Every structure is written in structure tokens, then in C-alpha cells.
């Protein structure tokens, strides 16, 4: 049985950063991921990473922008930590080899980003996530003696001892189908979000909420799950992401009248207002009949106002995406975009060290977690920062925690149960629905009812549908009976994760009877600080039903105020 001080599940930015930090702190580390680490979804982050590094910038300004961006739902102690530690983290990345853009003096250069009062986004063309992820993987390779990398291992369950402490996981080697029990003193979840519960989404096919559901299953609370970010610029064609960097470089948004409609919604920041504001403005334009395209469901993003040389150098990837996936040369004509599901602010509730409050030994960092630094709405280029800061902190804390501990003994019952569960799925007769069909229905339904604008009726329909689909999923069948790369059976397990997390989102959205950040209730269109300046926590408490509680927002120095851009 593999035994390590720190076991990390997920190998995107948060997971790899945690692994390196834990190894630096002297721990023996395993990092386990259902895909090869460089395939992790962090690779798709395009625009950049925020840090108040310039001498004239301050971390307080960055923190205030983040608090305001969160619509005052973010926990200010956590936000302060993130913004204060950002400059050092950025320099660390530079030192280990990230090829950040330079200005003419050879120093790190920045671009503007949404919701920020200063240009503090550092970047590598528009492949920032890829560049950082690949450089971290270079380091993982360098650390091969202290970090064991289990690539293409699929986690099926977190394992607890008799006291409820998390002491490892059960995972399946996708390549051979073998199941293995992993033993660890501390477990860090870094397995990303659940974007696939929406269709379309900018998220990769692997973003199925595995870690959120696994933690939820063993009693961890989920927080801010109603806060789902719709990115203002996804391709109308297929939902692919067009980086906010485009607007950072000066691109305009236009409606069918050729009007720069953001003037009406955010006269100061215009296209660079926070994402929830811009997406809502777009949805309003579309709903009021000023959209473009055959069904009026899109709007124009006009990049032609950015100098071509600049576009070709700094937005190379979206030039290609436009060309390859929409047949549009964005340097010469506007491209059709619309708001699309992109990120979840919510996740497994943690403290500022990444610890999950009710489950000892369990940590979470990155999109799987909710610290909460993003609150009601995440600012662009704060997610990479979140993964790195809290990934590192979780890695360091877990290593420290493990130092004085003996290796726990891990009960094997969970391994047996998971084996039986998988065998049962494989053995199901072909009388139920296909997995893919259920997944499709879930995504389409969520995107209809739990999107930019929500109301009680739509949310009730959503909850009803999720319950029905959960029922359907218990008899859904698969085709693959093999063990080697049986992706089919993994898909069935992922579907279960998606349904659990979708339910938490719907329940939280029903609960919050106000409009704040990404949650806009047409039946409760105002923000209501008196009643709702608080987090919504969802827990399972040992059964299959979501239970709702509330917890306070931590405030340090910024009182809620009206939010204008």
C-alpha cells in the first residue's frame, strides 16, 4: 500500500504547487491525477495572474478590488492573505522559469484586467495557465525523488478512520483497472471544479466536480455553491473561452446596433467591469432583442480596435481559436460571443490553511475549494493566484501537520466497497438510460435554469430534474466491460459526482433570496445585506439529502457599499 505524509488528489496548479511546497517542507508526497498533470484544466487559463508587484501598486488596492468584485461576500482575512502573498508567489514563478512577458526594460510587464483599479495582471501571451502549469511540471520532474506522481489514476473515494479523520483514498489505475488503497497522514484535494454540470461550458470534459462530491460524501460542508460564474466572452459557436485579456488589451463589446452597450451598465470601467456585471449586461441586451446572429443569441467582441501587431503577439491563442473554431480572423472582423459558464466560486469550505473544518486531515485548494476569496464573483486573473497561494499554503500546512504524526492505519473496507460498486456498474443490464444522455440533460437544464438570471420557478424545476436524474443514474448502463482504460465506467462515476454537486448548487441558489454577485434572482433583484450578507453552507450530515446552514462573512477593513463600475 503506497503511504505518504501528504497525498494530493489533482495535479493542476493547486495540486502541483501543494506537492512542491510539501516536498520543500520535508514531507514525502504523492500526487495523483486522473489525467496526466499537464492535461489538467489549469492549462486553459489564458489571461494572466494578478499581483500588486509594481512599486506604485499596493496589496490593499488589489484586496479592495477583490472584495468589491466578490460583492462583499468574500472573506476578507483570506483575501488579505492572498493579495499580500501574491508578489512573492509571482517572483517565485519567475525564478523557476515561467516566461512572463517583459517590458522594454526587461522587467515584468502587465496588462489591464476586469474589475481592477490598476494594471496588475502578469502574463505569458494568452497561454499563462499553460506556461505556469508546464513549468510546475518541470519542477515535479525535478523533484522526482520526493514527489511520487501517479498519472492517470482515478480517485473513487476518500477514506476515513474510525474517528472520521481523512487518512487516504481509494483509486483506480486507469491503465490497468487495478484498485489501490492510498495511505496518508494528510490528504489535499486539488481536483478542480464542476463546469461539466453545465452545457455548454468553457470547462474541460474532466471538470466533473469529483473532489467536491467526494468531500461532500464524507461530511465536508460546501460553501457559496450558488455562485456560478458566467464568463462574458465565450464563442457563440461552441462555448469556447475568449480570454478577458482581449478586453484588457482594449477590445469593445457591441450590440446589433453597433452600440458599445457597456456605457449604459458600467460607464467608468466599461468592458472591464467585473464579469458578473458584464455578463448580465450582455444577457440583458440579448433578452431585449439587441443580440446578433440568426437567433439573436450573440454579441460582437471587436478586437480590431487593438493594434494588429499587439493582437498577434499577445492574443495569439484566441487568434487561432477564432480562425479554427469560428472561421473568423479576429484581427480583421468582430467575433460573435455570449456569456457562458466558466467557473464556480463555491466549493469545499476551508480555512486559510486549506483545512476543511469538519474533517481532520482533509485539505482543499483551488477551484475545488471555497476559502472564500471570490465570494459572489471572481475577478479575472485571481483564480491562478488562488490556486497557487492556497495550494502552497495547504502543502506547507499539511507537511507540518504530518511531521509529528505516525502513519495512520487505513481501513480496507472502502476499497472493497468501491470494487463492488464498479463491478455492479459494469454488470448492469441495458434497460436503463445511457450515461451520456443523462449528462446532456443535466447540462442543458442547468444552463437554462441556473444561469445568469434565475427565479424560484426555474430553480424548482432544476431541483426536480436533478432528483429525477439521480434516480435515473442508479440504473444507467455502460458498454465497456473491460479493465484497461475503461473510460466508460469512470464516466458513470463522474456522473454521480456531477449530480451531487449540481444539487448543492441548485439548493443554495433556491436558498439565497437576493441578488449578489453571480446570483441574480429576477424575483429578488436587489442585494440585501441585512439578511443575506452571509455564506450558505451545504452538508450531507450522513444521508443523501443536502442540509442548509449559514455562516458569517469575515470582514476586516471594508464595509459593504454600493457596487458600481
Amino acid at each position, binding site marked *: 500500500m503506497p503511504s505518504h505524509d501528504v497525498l494530493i488528489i489533482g495535479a493542476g496548479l493547486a495540486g502541483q504547487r501543494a506537492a512542491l511546497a510539501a516536498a520543500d517542507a520535508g514531507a514525502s508526497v504523492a500526487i495523483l491525477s486522473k489525467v*496526466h498533470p499537464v*492535461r489538467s484544466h489549469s*492549462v486553459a487559463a489564458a489571461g494572466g495572474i494578478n499581483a500588486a508587484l509594481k512599486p506604485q501598486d499596493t496589496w490593499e488596492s488589489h484586496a479592495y478590488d477583490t472584495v468589491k468584485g466578490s460583492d462583499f461576500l468574500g472573506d476578507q482575512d483570506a483575501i488579505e492573505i492572498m493579495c499580500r502573498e501574491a508578489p512573492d508567489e509571482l517572483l517565485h514563478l519567475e525564478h523557476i522559469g515561467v516566461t512572463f512577458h517583459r517590458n522594454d526594460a526587461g522587467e515584468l510587464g502587465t496588462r489591464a484586467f476586469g474589475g481592477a483599479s490598476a494594471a496588475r495582471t502578469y502574463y505569458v501571451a494568452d497561454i499563462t495557465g499553460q506556461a505556469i502549469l508546464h513549468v510546475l511540471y518541470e519542477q515535479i520532474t525535478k523533484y522526482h525523488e520526493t514527489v511520487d506522481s501517479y*498519472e492517470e489514476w482515478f480517485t473513487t473515494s476518500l477514506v476515513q478512520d474510525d474517528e472520521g479523520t481523512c487518512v487516504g483514498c481509494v483509486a483506480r489505475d486507469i491503465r490497468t483497472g487495478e484498485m489501490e488503497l492510498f495511505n496518508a497522514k494528510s490528504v489535499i484535494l486539488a481536483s478542480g471544479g464542476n463546469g461539466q454540470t453545465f452545457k455548454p461550458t468553457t470547462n*474541460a470534459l474532466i471538470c466533473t466536480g469529483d473532489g467536491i462530491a467526494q468531500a461532500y460524501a464524507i461530511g465536508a460542508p460546501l460553501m457559496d455553491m450558488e455562485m456560478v460564474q458566467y464568463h462574458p466572452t465565450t464563442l457563440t459557436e461552441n462555448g469556447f*473561452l475568449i480570454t478577458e485579456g482581449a478586453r484588457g488589451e482594449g477590445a469593445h463589446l457591441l450590440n446589433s446596433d453597433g452600440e458599445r452597450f457597456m456605457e449604459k451598465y458600467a460607464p467608468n470601467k466599461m468592458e472591464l467591469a467585473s464579469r458578473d456585471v458584464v455578463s448580465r449586461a450582455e444577457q440583458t441586451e440579448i433578452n431585449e432583442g439587441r443580440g446578433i446572429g440568426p437567433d439573436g443569441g450573440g454579441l460582437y467582441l471587436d478586437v480590431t480596435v487593438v493594434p494588429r501587431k499587439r493582437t498577434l503577439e499577445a492574443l495569439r491563442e484566441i487568434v487561432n481559436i477564432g480562425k479554427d*473554431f469560428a472561421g473568423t480572423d479576429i484581427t480583421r472582423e468582430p467575433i460573435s460571443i455570449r456569456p457562458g459558464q466558466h467557473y464556480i466560486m463555491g466549493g469545499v469550505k476551508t480555512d486559510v490553511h486549506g483545512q476543511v473544518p469538519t474533517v481532520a486531515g482533509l485539505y482543499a485548494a483551488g477551484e475545488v475549494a471555497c476559502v472564500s476569496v471570490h465570494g459572489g464573483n471572481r475577478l479575472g486573473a485571481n483564480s491562478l493566484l488562488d490556486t497557487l497561494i492556497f495550494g502552497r499554503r495547504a502543502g506547507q500546512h499539511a507537511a507540518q501537520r504530518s511531521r509529528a504524526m505516525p502513519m495512520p492505519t487505513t481501513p480496507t473496507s472502502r476499497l472493497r466497497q468501491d470494487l463492488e460498486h464498479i463491478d455492479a456498474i459494469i454488470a448492469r443490464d441495458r434497460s436503463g438510460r445511457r450515461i451520456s444522455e443523462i449528462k446532456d440533460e443535466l447540462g442543458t437544464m442547468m444552463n437554462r435554469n441556473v444561469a445568469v438570471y434565475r427565479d424560484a420557478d426555474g430553480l424548482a424545476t432544476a431541483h426536480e430534474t436533478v432528483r429525477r436524474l439521480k434516480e435515473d443514474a442508479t440504473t444507467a448502463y455502460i*458498454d465497456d466491460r473491460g479493465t484497461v482504460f475503461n473510460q466508460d465506467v469512470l*464516466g458513470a462515476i463522474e456522473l454521480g459526482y456531477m449530480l451531487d454537486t449540481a444539487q448543492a448548487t441548485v439548493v443554495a441558489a433556491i436558498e439565497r433570496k437576493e441578488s449578489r454577485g453571480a446570483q441574480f434572482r429576477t424575483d429578488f433583484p436587489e442585494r440585501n445585506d441585512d439578511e443575506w450578507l452571509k455564506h450558505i453552507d451545504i452538508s450531507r450530515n450522513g444521508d443523501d439529502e443536502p442540509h442548509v446552514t449559514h455562516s458569517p462573512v469575515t470582514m476586516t477593513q471594508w464595509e459593504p457599499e454600493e457596487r458600481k463600475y
Partner: protein
Amino acid sequence: MAEFTLRLRRYDPESGEAAYWDEHTIDLEPHRSVLEGILQARARFDGSIGIRCSCRAAICGSCGVRINGQPALACHTHLDQAMKGARDGVIEIEPMGNMPVLKDLIVDMDAVHWKKVRRVTPWLINKEPIPEREYIVPHEAMVDVTQSMACIQCGACVSDCLSMEVDPLFIGPAALAKAYRFVGDPRDAQHSERLNDLAQDPHGIYDCTHCFKCIEACPKGVAPMSQIMRLRRISGRDHGIVDANNGERHEIAFTNLVRDHGLLWEAELLPRSYGGDSWLAKFGPAAGRELLSSLPVIGKALLRGKVTPMGALKAHKLPDEDLQQVKRIYATVEGRDEAERYELNLYISGYDEDMEGAEGPPPDAAAAGAQGGDGGMAGAESGQPGQSPERSPSR
């Protein structure tokens, strides 16, 4: 919507049977990707079809396959585009080459690709002292290595590498492009050590056969072969590394023979590549061994009158005046010091037409137009600078 038939190469390692073809007809808009087609087949007909995939947008590098024999990302190839290459109206999809197949379209990248990446010490070895803030490095240097950083490790170039096909030990295009990412990075302290390692390895930078397959295969414009050629250039010219594989000697012998004769003198090139850049090289032991092993070939060539003794011993040469011009070009260009060098990289600079913002052909069309038939020898005919009819009118 349109119907497309996909012919998938299937392999089930547990069945004990050989790989086979499996056809499915799917229904999608023509500009949808081959990956979406495969996923539809999997969702509707057969959930056991194995393919790695994740982002769907050509950034995660998971879905490298061969489509109609050509390496590609399945998510980055439109169905209608794939139809053009389909021989019998069916889009043929196979696993990538040069790597063992694990199941269906899934290959063992770890056994080949990642092993080779690990071979090139793929992490930055910092130049000391590490500054308190960032390293101050030129803007261009960072853009330059970002070309290699743009590699998504999809393996398309490895799949198609013709050197690796014959020599599985060849370090290969992806790993060598990765190596350039450090050699080109001013923050790395071990350029010379890295280059020496890669130059001396018989399966290193001089094992690339210059076939352009990797440039053609790469979906991200990394141009691995160009990075390999830059590694050679920096190795020989800037670090003076003379490798045991005759790579640098060959390069110098070739370059200097053209300097001295204006044209290539093959009979002299071979011995100098083995023995060093001098007329005496052919009498050196290395060249001697080589000549000896080639004797049957030389004999036959003489016998057939393909090569005459005089022809082999005497170089064909340019007329004197032209040779002097060539020599002066050498003196000027080779005489530039490092700061004066002008090594144009179109990945960084882009094409004039693209930078002007006027109506001009996209890069691909511009390159094609450069030798397209219609323009003829535009410059010669018009006699005026920049009056090529195929080019941007705005310059």
C-alpha cells in the same frame, strides 16, 4: 447537419485479438471537430471507444491521433476538413505512431514521449545569484522561448518523426524543442553543458534528418525542427562544441567549401566531415575508415562514369568575380558579432502584411503567394521596389 462516417482503429488488449477497424456514422455540422464526432459515436453507439480528451480547444494536448494518416489533434480538425483527406469518403482515425498502443486510440506516451522529455533535464537551472526581484531579460528572449513553451506535449511530432521511426533512441522533436526552451532562456546557467550533452549523444541534435515532419505536424507552431537547428547553431557557433557525430565538422566543412568555391564540392565534403575542415582531412584516420567503407560505392561510381577522377579531385568553381562576391558576403555576415546579428524569427516578428492592418493575405497565403505562378518574377519585371501584384498594396 451532415452525416460523416468515421473508421476507427480499435484495439482491445484484453481480447487477445489484433487491432481492427470499426465504422460509425455520426451526424454533426461540418465545421464540428473530429473529436466531437468520436464523442458522439461513443455517446450514441459504443461507450467503449477509447480516446484521451479533455479541453476540446487544442490546449490540453490529450487527443493526438492520426487522421487519414496525418498526425493531428482530433479537436483541432474539422469534419469537413478531414473529409478532404478521406480516401474513400470515410474519415480514418488511428492512434499516433512511434508509440505503443494501449487501447484503441490511446498510446503509451510515458514509454516514449515523456521518457525523452525527462532525458533533456527539463527544468531551469538558475543562473546565480537569483535576483531579489525578477531576472531582467530582453522582451524578445521571452517571446522567443515562448514559442517552445507553446508546446502542449501532444506527441503529434513524435508520432510522425522519421528519424525516430528508424532510430527509436532518437531524443526526438518534442524533447529537443523543450531543450531549446532552456538553452534559449537567459536565466538558465547551463547552456553549454546542455548543448554538449545533446550534441555528443549519437541520438541527439545531430540525429535529426531535417524532414520537416514535426513542423508540419505541430498544431501550435512550435516548429521543433527549427528549434533543433538553432540548438545546432548555438552549439557550434557560440559554444564551439565539436561533437563526436561529425555534426559540427560537417556544418563547418560545408559552409567553408561554399565560401572557397561558391559551390559544393561533394568529394571533399565527406572526408572533411569526418576528418576536419582541411584538404588534409581525407588522410586522417576517421576519414580513412569512412573512405575505406565507401570504396565499393566509389569504385562503382567511377566505373559507371558517374564520377570521373578529375571531377572528384577538382572542384567546380564559380567564376572569379562571383567567388570574390561570395567571399565578401561571408566576410560581412560572418564578421558580425553577437550583438549585430540579425536572426529573423517569423514567429516573433510576424509578417509585414499582418502588421500593416490593411487588406493583405494571411500568413499562409502570403507564403504561398511568394512563389505562386501569377506574380512571376515581379521584381524583375516591374523594376520597382515592392510592386509585387500579390502583395499588400498599402506598403
